């Protein structure tokens, strides 16, 4: 996923949508039926009440790159789309992982936070950009990775 450089066919879109029972299924249904593929999706409330922000990484397959944005724009539930592919953005993904080892200094050095330690292992969290997350996952394997949960990236344009 995001630990490898994105192939050219992948667009990163930040989509502001109206909250509603049908919104997510309409967004994902549209992506599917236009022949695109979701590589990652994260959804959360936006700053405005009644609106959510969806961050999508989409492989547009054989279609022209701008088709993903244009098709999503047709949905009435979609209020605003920013195509942030290759732009100056802050991109962060959260990783929560459980490792066997209690010796996690190497992970902490990389920026991980220890959430708990017990006889069965240690739980750590890490947030970072795509490449850092990839490096962190590699590091986890050295510590006997038991389980991992990843959020998929959230993206916002840089202020400067």
């Amino acid at each position, binding site marked *: 996923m995001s630990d490898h450089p994105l192939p050219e066919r992948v667009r990163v879109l930040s989509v502001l949508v109206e909250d509603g029972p*049908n919104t997510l299924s*309409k967004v994902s249904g549209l992506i599917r039926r236009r022949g695109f593929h979701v590589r990652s999706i994260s959804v959360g409330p936006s700053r405005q009440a009644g609106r959510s922000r969806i961050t999508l990484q989409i492989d547009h397959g054989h279609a*022209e790159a701008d088709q993903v944005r*244009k*098709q999503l724009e*047709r949905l*009435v539930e979609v209020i605003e789309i920013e195509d942030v592919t290759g732009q100056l953005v802050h991109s962060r993904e959260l990783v929560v992982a459980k490792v066997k080892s209690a010796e996690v200094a190497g992970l902490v050095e990389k920026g991980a936070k220890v959430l708990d330690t017990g006889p069965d292992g240690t739980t750590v969290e890490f947030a970072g950009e795509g490449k850092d997350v990839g490096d962190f996952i590699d590091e986890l394997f050295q510590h006997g990775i038991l389980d991992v949960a990843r959020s998929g990236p959230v993206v916002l344009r840089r202020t400067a």
Partner: protein
Amino acid sequence: MILEALEREDVEYIFGYPGGANLPIYQHLPDHPKLKHILVRHEQGAAHMADGYARACGKPGVVFATSGPGALNLVTGLATAYMDSVPMIAITGQVASTQVGRDAFQETDVIGATSSVTKHSYLVTSIDQLPRVIHEAFHIATTGRPGPVLIDICKDVQQANAEPVGRERLDIPGYQLNGHVDLDRAGEAARAVAGAERPVILAGHGVILSHAEAELREFAEKAGAPVGTTLLGVGAFPVNHPLSLHMTGFMGTGWNLKAVQNADVLMMVGMRVDDRVTARLADFAPNVKTFIHIDIDGSEMGKNVRPHVELVADAKNALGAMTPHIGELHEGRGQWFSQIDAWREEHPLKYTHSNGHLQPQDVLIDMYRRCRNEAIVVADVGQNQIWAALWWNYDRPGLFLNSGGSGTMGFALPAAIGAKFGRPDKAVWCVAGEGGFVMTAQELSVAVEHQLDIKIVILNNFSLGMVRQFQDDFYGGVRSQSDLTHMPDFVKLADAYGLPAIRVDRFDEIGPAMDAAEKTKGPFLIDFRIDPEANVYPIVPLGKSLNDFWEAPDK
């Protein structure tokens, strides 16, 4: 409350069918005599009637259906309207909001089932949402690129009481009619067409939807550019006009396809540029240096063909903005016209009528001689549709209605019924094959009940004609499951439904049968038993380029 809202939207006709989950609406229907309800015999018929109504008179068609099977029976009709950008409002009953998700009786996730075939949809779970939703739905269905909007209303909401409210102000942040004409690009586009040595304009349904036929004609005449139409664009430009290239696409005329394939500038107006227009995409219009695409829906730009100049606007605005910028025409234009004339001579529309069988073209030519451009022709899907498109010289929009994008068999009869409700002043002719006709034949009851003056022409070739033709030519000659010898006696069928009918087997019977149809007030059916081997020509073999069209064999 629902019915009051519909009255506020100036709804005249509702095509519908009652059932468990929409009975509260029907209970109050008699209190609203301004809303004329047409009871259909199958919900698909309701959707096609609303579609035909909207195509004929321009107002959105309104449909009622109950939950579950009722709503699901609309899906084909919604898809048909969606593909052809027809404004429609479908109001479906849903189980009570407290029952949703419990697999209640006749419960279906209608929003889920229809999302891909509607422009927008709403599930209404509370009475407060209702006035806003209905007003928004009409706005969305009829503006921008039109399309069907579905409103799924829970039964308890239908039964709830609320104070009547006025029309709400619209506030739909995710729906901006952001079509714009970039005037600089409009000038560039106009000069590109005028300065081209071999320009071609193709006009689609968008020209008709935006009422841009006068603007198109003015632009084409001033820019000296020949105009072809798509199947849904038939009527956007008069076939008898000297600049007309008639219909394009894989069953278009030979001279049209030659012109498209040799054009150096191709301007596509109000069309989707789908595979039926381009045939093999890699070989579509290979000599074009400048593609110009005009459409109200920005997502059409580059969806199939990447234009060099794109104008996101409705055809009327775009063409109006372009015409003043036409400027000098290329000096080679005369030569281009002579070349097109030569192709027209070389590749005329033709058909065989020497084998003793009744030919469908003879039927249509007789019809055209009678109706000229005063009747609405509603075609079904298949050979009958292409014959009806090619053998009438439509000179204005709105006379030829058909399911172009979705290709829905069974469309013609209910759509013709809807068209007659929408345009009672017009003669309406329904042209269908026997295969498509029986798919929605139950709606004959509606035509008889309302004594609608529609003439039903069945071009009966005892087979799924287009399928049979494809099998003969492209699938190894294996006539698999395309035989329709076992069909009802259509004259007896008509009699059972209560309308007069005649069977025609010979050329010299066409005239008298048509006379009888025209003289009869109310519905009339003619079963034309045509040449079972009759084919549609020209045709581009599947997967081939437009250059490779086949013509009718000389016999």
